[in-house]
């Protein structure tokens, strides 16, 4: 049994097929590119990313410049989207706030996914003690109030946007663990997982190539949804001293401030709300596109 196996060599009718010489085009990518809503989502997300990146180059007023004479002014030619409670230009703050908000949204989701999905897979696939430990820890994390977690993190990691993202990421992790675990349970019972074992795939390959792709759809959905929650959560963290500190803008904190002026200055809530909606829409469309592209059955 120790002797090395030699690959089987039997000449077949078709080894010289032209198909072999050209590199197979990546079907997923191709499908993705041709996916209508994915492209729309991509454009939306790209638009906001560009805004965030090029904010300093755009001919817009200083987002921090206050104007005592133009406090809470409705949209006008001078201020397209109006001004806020301190007379700052809302459009400019929206654009400058894109960076913090997108980062908060994307990075914290990335943290949650990269923690939650592997843990969920381990728990679901191995069961037993692994599952018990991971699941109980998840429950502990779930039960601990977000606020306490956030304040503690703020105190120990110090106030920064990165730490806010970590806090949001950690608190969003349990959902991914649970979601993944639940999905793994049913996927692991499939025949094709047995077939992978029969082939002798090492466990990590089974996890990464058989289990992971098949648990991905709900994870994708949850991830794209969590972007919204994370953007909004960033604001509550900045209030706790984590995250973007005033006066630097972020959409969440713009919304938070707007809360007090809903009746007098509705636009203050409207624009950041729309921005968050569009970004979330963009990510969700992208997610749908990815989901469809990854599902070979989808036309």
């Amino acid at each position, binding site marked *: 049994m120790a002797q090395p196996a030699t690959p089987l060599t039997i000449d077949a009718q078709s080894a010289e097929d032209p198909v072999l010489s050209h590199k197979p085009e990546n079907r997923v990518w191709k499908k993705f590119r041709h996916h209508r809503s994915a492209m729309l989502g991509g454009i939306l997300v790209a638009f906001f990313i560009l805004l965030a990146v090029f904010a300093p180059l755009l001919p817009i007023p200083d987002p921090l410049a*206050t104007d*005592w004479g133009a406090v809470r002014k409705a949209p006008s030619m001078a201020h397209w989207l109006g001004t806020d*409670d301190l007379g700052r230009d809302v459009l400019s703050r929206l654009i400058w706030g894109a960076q913090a908000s997108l980062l908060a949204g994307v990075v914290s989701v990335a943290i949650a996914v990269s923690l939650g999905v592997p843990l969920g897979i381990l728990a679901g696939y191995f069961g037993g003690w692994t599952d018990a430990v991971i699941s109980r820890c998840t429950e502990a994390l779930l039960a601990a109030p977000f606020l306490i977690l956030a*304040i503690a993190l703020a105190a120990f990691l110090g106030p920064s946007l990165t730490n806010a993202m970590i806090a949001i990421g950690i608190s969003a992790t349990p959902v991914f663990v649970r979601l993944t675990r639940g999905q793994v349970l049913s996927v692991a019972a499939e025949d094709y997982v047995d077939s992978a074992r029969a082939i002798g795939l090492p466990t990590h390959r089974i996890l990464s190539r058989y289990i992971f792709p098949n648990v991905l759809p709900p994870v994708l959905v949850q991830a794209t949804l969590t972007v919204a929650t994370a953007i909004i959560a960033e604001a509550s963290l900045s209030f706790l001293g984590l995250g973007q*500190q005033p006066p630097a803008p972020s959409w969440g904190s713009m919304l938070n401030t707007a809360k007090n002026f809903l009746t007098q200055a509705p636009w203050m809530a409207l624009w950041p709300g729309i921005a968050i909606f569009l970004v979330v829409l963009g990510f969700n469309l992208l997610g749908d596109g990815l989901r469809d592209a990854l599902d070979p059955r989808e036309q």
Partner: protein
Amino acid sequence: ADLRIALQSDADVLDPDQSRTFVGRIVYTSMCDKLVDITPDLEFTPQLATEWTFSEDGKQLTLKLREDVVFHDGTPFDAEAVAANIDRSQNMEASRRKSELSSIVGTEVLGSHEIRFDLASADATLLAQLADRAGMMVSPTAAAEAGADFGLNPVCSGPYKFKERVAQDRIVLEKFADYYNADEFNFDTVTYLPIPDTTVRLANLQSGDIDLIERLAATDLEQAESDAGIQVESAVSLGYQGITFNVNNGEKGDNPWGNDKRLRQAFSYALDRAAINQVVFNGAFAEGNQSFPPNSPWYSTDFPVPARDIEKAKALLAEAGYPDGIDLEVQVPNTTVPLQLMQVVQSMVSEAGIRVSLTSKEFATLLADQSAGDYTASQIGWSGRVDPDGNIHQFMTTDGGINDSKFSNAEVDTLLDRARTSNDQAVRKESYNAARAILNDEQPIVYVYHQTWIWALDDAIKGFTPYPDGMIRLAGVTKDEG
């Protein structure tokens, strides 16, 4: 009929000796009578005590008490009860009133309704304390029975008695039929509901779910005034808001801002207090630069609210060695108004070259950091006391309990102590003015504004009187039905 009052937050424990929140005092106003009360002009007026006299040396205070008063549990109110209450406030372990009554060294029941307090030294603040929680009389029988749990079912002698409480939901009082002045009170029950969000508070008033709200946001004034169904009342508060600098509190006190008063002066000059008031409070609040609001008799007219002077601020900075400006980190409570305020301040002082960075903290952290001296500057205020001493002594004297900047100046200590122990208004006033001269130079606290209490009421409510202490007194208040 039921009167529904929306408060900004939920009260804490309902025991006058243990409680500490502002909203708690609002509830007590209808539930627990005090020995003395105040008028809207801050004059003392009889409540449970009909008369009071200080001895010549100010070391004895004799009170004559009402004779027609019973507590909600039927216990009669008399001099013994007062003595028991003073004892409770001073000696119950959980009491938060100890320092307020620390000048009383003994009580002497002179008759069934007459009592004398013996003081260690003259105490000008005592009457003011008796006009607040320290002067609230609780039923001695109930208090003895309940001990520290008294707050779960408080028994006082006010016009309304405690009915029920659901934490964070409501506190219900019902009319106390045996109240000596029961006719003046026109509601069967009074319900206090905590509604933290100002917009929602107003909306509840507009929808008719609530009859009266306290602390309407200044920015909502216009809207409330334009609503025909709503009336607005206001009174400038006794408190102040400002920025406390760490002058000498621990290691962090050793910083340019703590060491060089010129920087703090520059900071003050860089502020446009009127603009702040306009931007953040729609002009509804009062600008300020002292521990008392400008309309207070204790306000020192020698130092009027300064106009903004950027040049002077810059000059001071340059003089202090910072011609290119200087950084300053300010901690701010994480609520809307302070954040708004500080962003305006930040923007204003930046024109003078002061680069402020803000750190918002939730209040408990902020407080802990502040008292531990772990800060450079902190945006914080004081809710105010009837007696001027309450607004200044504990902050500015070397051993002051709340002196978080650890400002220490022997002369100020002497002046403020003198003001505290004199019953002569003129002496007191003079002392405060003299202290102000020093403090205005030192600026350990840069005062910015004085809040205005704004109440919004349903049009049907009649007879409401605004008080500078922010309390809601229900005597004579009625509601038109229909």
